[in-house]
C-alpha cells in the first residue's frame, strides 16, 4: 500500500508545451517576490524555550536553596549568639532564685531599707542612677540584682542583659523607680522604646 501510495504521490507528467505561454501573460504585472529564508520549524523554538525555562528554573532553585541554607544558617548562628533555649531557661531560673532569695530574706530587705535611708556601710543591692536632668532614679532591689548580675555577666544571661540595657536607657530618661511588681511596666516601656527606635 505504501508503494502504491508513493507511486501516485510522486507521479509526474510533462504538461503540454503551450501551457507556459498560456500562463505567462497572466504574470506580466506580478512583482518579483523574494522568498523568505527557510525558517526553522516552530517546534525547535518551543523546544529551545522549554529547555531554557528548565535551565532557569534549575539555576533558580539552586540559588534559592543556597540562599535558604545561608539564611537559615545565619538565623541559627544569630539565635546561638543571642541565646539557646537551655541558656534562657537557666538564666530565668537563676534570676528567679535571686529574686526569691531577696524577697524571702528579711535581713536583706532590712539592709536595703537601711541603705535606702542613708546607711553607707551596707553593701548596695540597688542602683541609683542620674536621670538626664540630674535627678536620682532609684532601682528596686530585685531589678538592681538583675542589673548587677547582667552587668557582670556571670552567669551569662544574654536575654536579661539585652533587656536590662534597654531598661537602663529608659530609666536614664525617667524618674520612675521600677519595682519587681512593675516589671510589666518595664517591659511595656521597653516595647515602646523599640517602637520608637
Amino acid at each position, binding site marked *: *500500500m*505504501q*508503494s*502504491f*501510495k508513493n*507511486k*501516485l*504521490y*510522486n*507521479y*509526474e*507528467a*510533462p*504538461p*503540454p508545451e503551450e*501551457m*507556459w505561454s*498560456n*500562463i*505567462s501573460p*497572466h*504574470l506580466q504585472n*506580478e512583482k*518579483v*517576490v523574494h*522568498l*523568505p*529564508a*527557510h*525558517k526553522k*520549524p*516552530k517546534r525547535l523554538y518551543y523546544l529551545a524555550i522549554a529547555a531554557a525555562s528548565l535551565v532557569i528554573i534549575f539555576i533558580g532553585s539552586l540559588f534559592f536553596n543556597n540562599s535558604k541554607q545561608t539564611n537559615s544558617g545565619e538565623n541559627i548562628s544569630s539565635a546561638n549568639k543571642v541565646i539557646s533555649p537551655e541558656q534562657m531557661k537557666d538564666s530565668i531560673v537563676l534570676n528567679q532564685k535571686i529574686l526569691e532569695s531577696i524577697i524571702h530574706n528579711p535581713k536583706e530587705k532590712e539592709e536595703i531599707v537601711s541603705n535606702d535611708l542613708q546607711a553607707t556601710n551596707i553593701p548596695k543591692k540597688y542602683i541609683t542612677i542620674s536621670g538626664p536632668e540630674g535627678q536620682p532614679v532609684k532601682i528596686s532591689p530585685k531589678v538592681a540584682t538583675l542589673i548587677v548580675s547582667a552587668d557582670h555577666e556571670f552567669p551569662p544571661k544574654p536575654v536579661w542583659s539585652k533587656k536590662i540595657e534597654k531598661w537602663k536607657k529608659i530609666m536614664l530618661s525617667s524618674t520612675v523607680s521600677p519595682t519587681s511588681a512593675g516589671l510589666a511596666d518595664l517591659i511595656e516601656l521597653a516595647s515602646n522604646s523599640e517602637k520608637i527606635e
Partner: protein
Amino acid sequence: MQKLLYDRFSSKMYGVCLRYAENTEDANDVMQEGFIKVYKSLSKFRAEGSFEGWIRRIFVNTSIEHYRKKVKLYNVTEVQENTVEDNELDALDSLATKDILNIVNELSPGYKQVFNMHVVEGYSHKEIAELLGITEGTSKSQLARAKGVLKKIIEARSNS
C-alpha cells in the same frame, strides 16, 4: 525567475492535476489556474514547511475548487460500510504507476477525490470534509466505497 519555478515544478504539479481531474482538459485548466495562484501567493509563503508541499496544497485545493464548480456534492447517509483493509489493495503495488492511475481513474469523481486526498495526500477526514463541504461521516463512507470499488477492479483484472 517565473519560468524557472515553472520548469522546476510543472511536471509534478501536472501529475497532481491529472490525478484529480476527470479529463486532460480539466487538468490543463487546473494547471494554469494553479500556477497563477502560486505566483500571486508567493508573498504569503511563510517558509514554515517545504515549498513543494505549499505548492502542492495550492494545486490540490485548486483541483477541488474546480471539481466543486462542476459537481454538487451531497452528503450520503452514513451506513456501516464493508471496510476494505489496506492490504487487500496490495496488488496495486506491483503495477506500474500508469496502470495504477488508470485503475484509480475508473473511480467515480467523488470517490476519486476522497481517495486521493486521504490515501495519497494524507488529508484527515476532517480536512476533507471542510474542503469538499461534506460531513466527516460522508468522507469516510466515500473512502470505504472507493476502496471497495478498487478491490473489485483489481479482482476483475486478475481474473481476466
